[in-house]
């Protein structure tokens, strides 16, 4: 409840700031339109306005302020424009329509989930290998880090083409790009988690002469749980980003990535923003779902007080 109130206040502050920011951001566009419409603008030509500070423009043309929140192609769309667009493209459209964000979100979601499963599965396996094998630890870990310094957006088209040339197409290439982004946080988190038992806890098992698999199931895995969930939450957000990036070199025909791109292509800022928000909301929902599972699991395990 308290959280809710705080979030609400912060949101209100952000929205207020956002509306205020719209004024200087959009004033030039508004004045250009107004000038073309024959209105009296100060200064009169677009060229002169270009060299003026935005706040000076606002001060000189107070009549235009209201219009900065209603522009067609604003530099910064006003909150209500984004919300309206979101509303129009989710609730007001048939779910199967190509213009429905829900439809596009669902396309992206499929690739995201598939990539997430592949990525986290691989990440966990790799982490287990790294914790149990010195060779893996010493040779793979540095390269896992290097792999993340490679700009995926440059690699994505090539991944798609290479997979294409060996006959893999459809959702899988996108999922692989998504997995590429999500495996790393899981590896790092799980390695940390699997190594989190302290010396005494490990020594205890040694005195029982427990074997490696017992050590894994009875000590390492349970103590890695909080780390696992933290990295899963980062991982799913990364998966979503990966799926969106993966949509671009497959022709960006559908999915949130396609919406983002199309919006960008036609300078439809409102559409970009609403697709952006849809992506963030989707990520939020996925993370919230994981959080719920985390709560249940940790409670069952007695790790949450």
């Amino acid at each position, binding site marked *: 409840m308290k959280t809710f109130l705080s979030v609400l206040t912060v949101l209100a502050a952000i929205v207020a700031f956002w509306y205020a920011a719209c004024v200087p951001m959009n004033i*030039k*566009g508004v004045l*250009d*339109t107004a000038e*073309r419409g024959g209105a009296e603008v100060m200064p009169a*030509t*677009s*060229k002169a306005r*270009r060299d003026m500070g935005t706040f000076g423009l606002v001060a000189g043309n107070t009549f235009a302020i209201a219009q900065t929140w209603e522009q*067609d*192609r604003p*530099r910064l769309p006003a909150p209500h424009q984004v919300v309206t667009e979101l509303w129009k493209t989710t609730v007001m459209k048939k779910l199967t*329509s*190509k*213009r*429905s964000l829900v439809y*596009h979100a669902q396309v992206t979601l499929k690739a995201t989930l598939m990539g997430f499963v592949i990525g986290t599965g691989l990440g966990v396996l790799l982490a287990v290998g790294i914790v149990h094998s010195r060779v893996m630890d010493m040779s793979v870990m540095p390269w896992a880090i290097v792999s993340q310094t490679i700009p995926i*957006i440059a690699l*994505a*088209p*090539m991944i798609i*083409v*290479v997979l*294409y*040339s060996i006959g893999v*197409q459809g959702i899988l290439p996108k999922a692989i790009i998504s997995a590429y982004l999500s495996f790393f946080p899981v590896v790092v988190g799980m390695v940390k988690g699997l190594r989190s038992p302290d010396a005494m806890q490990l020594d205890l098992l040694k005195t029982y002469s427990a074997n490696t698999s017992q050590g894994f199931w009875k000590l390492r895995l349970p103590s890695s749980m909080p780390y696992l969930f933290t990295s899963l939450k980062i991982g799913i957000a990364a998966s979503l980003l990966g799926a969106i990036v993966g949509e*671009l*070199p497959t*022709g*960006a*025909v*559908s999915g949130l990535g*396609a*919406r983002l*791109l*199309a*919006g*960008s*292509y*036609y*300078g*439809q800022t409102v*559409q970009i923003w609403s697709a952006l928000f849809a992506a963030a909301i989707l990520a939020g929902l996925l993370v919230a779902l994981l959080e719920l599972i985390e709560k249940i699991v940790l409670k069952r395990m007695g790790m949450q007080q």
Partner: protein
Amino acid sequence: ADDVKLQLKWVTQAQFAGYYVALDKGFYSEEDLDVTILPGGPDIAPTQVIAGGGADVTVEWMPAALAAREKGLPLVNIAQPYKSSGMQLTCWNDTGIAGPEDLPNRTLGVWFFGNEFPFMSWMSKLGISTEAKGEMGVEVLKQGFNVDPLLQRQADCISTMTYNEYGQVLDAGVSPDELITFKYEDQGVATLEDGLYVLEENLDDPAFVDKMERFVRASMKGWKYAESNPDEAAEIVLDNDASGAQTEHHQQRMMREVAKLTAGSNGALDVADYERTVKTLLEGGSSPVITKTPEGAWTHIISDAALK
């Protein structure tokens, strides 16, 4: 039916109306073809896709195709539905630009990703450096996907296509007399756009050649239908746009403009146009796209057979 995969150069839009019309009107199935149209995008190099076996035939601009050929990817032009170039440079009138001689010391938006070659040739012909702003140089920006750099006045001029970006500038509320445009056709540096290209080795296969004949025939039928029924063609394009981002108004206008560019072509490559393109590219200044006259970069076998 024979499968054909067509890779487009850009996203689904009226620029490719002929193919969508042929698909939708059943021209392809009449020829016993099962055609899949793969949309392109900013992150897709059609030449790379065809090299990887992802497509049988691709829509590409000739400079990029010839460049790929020199890089060791033997692409061959089998048909040329676009007769003339739609590329132009669009500037604000109020910046004082009246002719090409006013371009130095300006900031220009240019498309890269294989589309920069005509611009480079033009600049080299004008003797303008693209390295830095100055008396004899311009500042070049890698333009993104849209016309914002012009609208936001981050650039004095940007590249536009007659059928697409130029319309977007007008849609933003700008009137044509606020702008001045330099068509590449008028500047004598036009290069061929939107031809159909296949891998050379495939042409040794009679079955493939036969397939392509039928494909070109049906595509041209689609193009001619689209030219004469622009609104219907635009509608078909809209139906095929899976992203749901295109608007009817924009596609209808695009179709009309595109029709002007395809009007002069029956599908066969005009060798004079080809040679003019090669000449332009060879003159491409310090780092020309191609360094020697290409051999075997086109063939009339298919268009001849298709159009007889």
